[in-house]
């Protein structure tokens, strides 16, 4: 193959871009992967940086063509023209676009994302506050997806065509077909409104809000660190429903992928050999086959995690979850482009880093890749 592959973030299809769980990573992705392993890590990082820069540029342009006036948001409806002009200049909007963009990039490189006009606070402070909320939700969601999805996929493959396989299939199918915001609404209605089993919208009950010292920004972790059991229970009761929802989507994807990886392994010769050697079926499946798919599986899980990080916008809105998704959306709808830019960089960086990690995993851990 002559063409230089610069797909960078390539490899297995990104779940953000593909409906998750569509068969195995496409063949093209694998080919790309194999080629990419030859490339140096430095080159990868450079191309990732380029991607991020492009991401910023696109966001920046969108922000400038947006028919929302950020100045108005700052000064309010009743401002006089003089007040408006003063704010316009203070925000640097009188500069040429190129200058504005370069200034912005310069500031970002120094860690300054500017000030959000809808919260009046530095964007970095806002992100430090909202990102852990999203991280916590996505982590628990992925955890649920893995704990249920992997065994489900393994069993489905081991007993192909059996009841578990059928169930797994339907679970995945329903997962791909259900509007998540609708499922969230119905979940809130049933489990909170009617049954009262879980905490309502938001991360914490109001009385626990701000009571636990902020260490990681993740309430579950912080309350454990503080040893505050009631606060932990409270936070758990709030996160469990949205996390289960996200977990459901993640499990639909993970179980399908696990199943197809397993089927591939189970048809290999070494499995037959192991069986002939008299190894128990359990050992064959859970130790040998599963052990061999560990690396692609980790990649799948990482990608699924990434997609939850960026794909939880609607869930956050339904559950009033003060996370990154709702922060960006809110910024977008009020012309708060500093917030949108900052948020997008973080999401984009997560995506890129997760891809990089799975890449490195392949490169260094996959025995076949040497």
């Amino acid at each position: 193959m002559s063409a230089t592959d610069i797909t960078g973030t390539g490899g297995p299809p990104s779940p953000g871009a593909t409906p998750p769980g569509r068969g195995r990573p496409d063949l093209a992705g694998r080919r790309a992967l194999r080629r990419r392993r030859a490339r140096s890590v430095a080159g990868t990082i450079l191309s990732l940086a380029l991607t991020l820069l492009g991401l910023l540029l696109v966001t920046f342009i969108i922000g400038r063509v947006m028919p929302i006036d950020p100045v108005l948001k700052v000064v309010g409806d009743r401002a006089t023209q003089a007040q408006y002009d003063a704010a316009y200049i203070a925000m640097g909007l009188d500069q040429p676009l190129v200058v504005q963009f370069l200034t912005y990039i310069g500031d970002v490189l120094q860690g300054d994302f500017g000030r959000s006009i809808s919260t009046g606070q530095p964007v970095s402070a806002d992100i430090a506050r909202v990102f852990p909320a999203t991280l916590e939700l996505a982590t628990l969601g992925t955890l649920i997806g893995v704990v249920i999805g992997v065994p489900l996929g393994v069993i489905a493959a081991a007993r192909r065509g059996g009841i578990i396989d059928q169930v797994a299939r339907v679970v995945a199918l329903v997962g791909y077909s259900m509007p998540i915001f609708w499922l969230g609404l119905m979940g809130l209605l049933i489990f909170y409104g009617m049954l009262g089993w879980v905490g309502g919208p938001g991360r914490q009950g109001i009385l626990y809000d701000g009571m636990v010292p902020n260490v990681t920004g993740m309430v579950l972790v912080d309350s454990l660190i503080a040893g505050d059991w009631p606060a932990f229970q409270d936070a758990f009761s709030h996160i469990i429903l949205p996390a289960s929802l996200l977990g459901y989507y993640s499990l639909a994807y993970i179980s399908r992928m696990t199943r197809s990886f397993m089927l591939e392994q189970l048809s290999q010769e070494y499995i037959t050999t192991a069986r002939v050697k008299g190894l128990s079926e359990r050992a064959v499946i859970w130790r040998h086959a599963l052990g061999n798919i560990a690396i692609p599986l980790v990649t799948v899980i990482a990608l699924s995690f990434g997609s939850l990080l960026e794909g939880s916008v609607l869930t956050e809105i339904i559950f009033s979850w003060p996370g990154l998704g709702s922060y960006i959306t809110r910024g977008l709808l009020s012309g708060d482009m500093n917030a949108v830019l900052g948020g997008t960089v973080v999401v984009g960086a997560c995506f890129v880093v997760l891809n990089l990690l799975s890449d490195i995993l392949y490169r260094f851990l996959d025995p076949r890749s040497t």
Partner: protein
Amino acid sequence: MTFHLTSRAVLLASALAFAPAAFAETPADTLVVAHTIDDIISLDPAQSFEFSGNDVNNNTYDRLVDFDPLDPEAGFQPSLAVSWEVSEDGLSITFTLREDVTFHSGNPVRAEDAAWSLQRAVKLDKTPAFILTQFGFTADNVDQMITSEGNTLTLTMDKPYAPSFVLNCLTANIASVVDMETVMANEADGDLGNGWLNTNEAGSGAYVLAAWRPNEQVQLTAYEDYWQGAPTMKRVIVRNVAESSAQRLLLEQGDIDVARNLTPTDVESIASVEGVTIQDEPRGRILYMGLNQKDELLSNPAVVEAMKHLVDYEGITNSFLKGQFVTHQSFLPRGYLGALDETPWTYDIEKARQILTDAGIEGGTITTRVRDLREYIDVAQTLQAAMGQVGLTLEIEQMTGAQVLDAYRAREVPIFLGEWGPDYSDPNTNAATFAYNPDNSDEAAAVGLLAWRNAYEVPAEMNEATVAATLEQDTDTRAAMYQDIQRQYQAEAPIVPLFQRIEQVGMGDGVQNWWSGGAISSVMYRQVTKGE
């Protein structure tokens, strides 16, 4: 459903293990309020101009004059000022300040602080500054016009304004008295402490700002040395809860004491829940229909007249706006000096059709933009249906508030449906925007005036009447003047007031003396108690 199969076990387990902790009563000395507070962008009284920001400042700062939350009808009352005197020529007012009041920092509240606070607001010239500068203050002259001596403060104005006008303006948030020494200690780059005050507080009010997390919550704690006595509620937590249904559930579960954004349907069902009461309070906001005179069709007086009969006032206030709005067809809200209760228009398709036929109007299409709030969209859709019956087609584009506002200020919204909230507690606040537009040209760019935004060329005599009413020294005469203006307005203006906002507050049974601020002010917590 399979979803239940897979995660029911998890949910069940969590519910059993965690249910007891999740639902607790609020403590007796803590008031927990659910409200949408995502509009706060600044807590500096010289800058804050959003409802929720003012809600906070109203409790953390005092003003020279204030409303009594237990008797708001009585109008402005002495607060930090014990008394005041208007000079013979009506050009200046001298206030005498209360002694022995301290800021949260422990510094005494002096006339000097009060004068500096007003000067600071004028000099910073943020959006709400016009409330003060309309009396002739400028950054250059304000040090001479507002002066302090001992425990007195003197305001000198450019015209003999009605004292009720001036004092009403001094109840506004921008007239809050801030602690000069604390603020100046936090000044940066000559910003008069604006940057610091955006997220901090330096007042003498009944509550101290304990925490503000944007879009999440505001926490206040009682100021024990408050000059009117420490408030009963030692802690007030205002949590941002955007959804009415969520507020309702929280209230039903006893997780909150007060829910401030309940929809009519939620109010209806929660009213029957034991332990919950609903309190109705008329607010100052007017939901109106602006008919842009730049639109060829709408500039026809017959169409304007017909449109007034195409709004299903009764149907709307009895269905999706039930309890949230009452029909109100004049621009001064109930609760204001000179408010007018007359409702000349009724929903009458036949009459509208007749008016249009008589004027020879066959039909037409109008495309307008409506803010994506349920209430506005629903009103727009009923209007759309009614207009359809008389041959007028209305196309609706939903947009965010910011987008609609941009277009509105550019005079590009043919039919505006939305609310106007008064800026201060004097009738001039609405008269000066609905019924005043000295120059209707595009170049005038009077973006702040609703009349200009709708390209409504206000007749000269109405412009003059509006100005004259601000100078009338006798309060009763003043009220009558505003009523006359409103009647004339109803007869001809293409800006049609439709409804007045009612705030339906859902409260736990024990909550007493709640006041959201009525038509004229913002919420006050210090008088609230929670009995059992």
